[in-house]
């Protein structure tokens, strides 16, 4: 069974969790031999932007030692043969097409999504 994981909301509790929890569970499922793809839509496309830096949170004497790094985590998924797709229009709306983006992502237009869905047995939107 091949599943396409759609991630739409970025930075939801990523500081508290030190991960994007959908990218994280995708890693965990891949570790259990799941065949997956990840599609970034909506504001989650910002995860492929360069120069993201979520480090430095300090609350009283507490310091975050393991800040989230979604771009690196996506790169790691790609190294595990999980394709990462990104909706081109969502990148363009956010001015990201002019920016340095994570290497290896596959850009898809919205009108290509039905074809992409067809390549997977199931589509799960998180």
């Amino acid at each position, binding site marked *: *069974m091949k599943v396409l994981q759609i991630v739409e909301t970025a930075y939801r509790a990523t500081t508290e969790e030190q991960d994007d*929890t959908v990218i994280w569970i995708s890693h*965990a499922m891949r570790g259990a031999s799941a065949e997956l793809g990840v599609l970034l839509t909506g504001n989650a496309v910002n995860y492929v932007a360069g120069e993201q830096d979520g480090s430095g949170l300090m609350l009283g004497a507490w310091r975050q030692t393991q800040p989230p790094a979604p771009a690196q985590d996506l790169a790691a998924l790609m190294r595990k043969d999980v394709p990462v797709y990104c909706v081109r229009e969502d990148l363009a709306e956010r001015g990201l097409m002019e920016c340095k983006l994570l290497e290896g992502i596959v850009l898809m237009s919205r009108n290509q999504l039905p074809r992409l869905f067809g390549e997977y047995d199931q589509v799960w939107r998180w």
Partner: protein
Amino acid sequence: MATKHTLTFVLMDAPFESARTTTAFRLLHAALDRGYDVNVFAYEGAVALSFAKQAQHPNAVHGRDVAQEDHPLSKNWIAALMAHARTRGADLKWVNCGLCVDERGVGEAIEGARRGSPADCWKMAQQSTATLVIPTK
């Protein structure tokens, strides 16, 4: 004879935070009512849905004591659905993501809810006719 299906639902919302929780439980009930086996993988805040220490309270705004208020508790909803499953010859499996349980300190779950991992989610989905993820926001 009607076909026996297994459906898997992945929930993410903590109790008392979203209408999605009520809708999710309505879906579970509808599936069990048809005699389908149902798997639930509770991820993130949803692991608190089965927390055994949820407690009812009165409602002074409405002048209701604890008994009168009869406040819903998701742990009671789960127990009720597990009982309902048995009357319909079906099975409700409730699995909480263990790491999510740990970070939220909700390790005491009601009887019938068990600790698991994303591998369980994947396995349940593989064994199901269909899987619905109800995401949080």
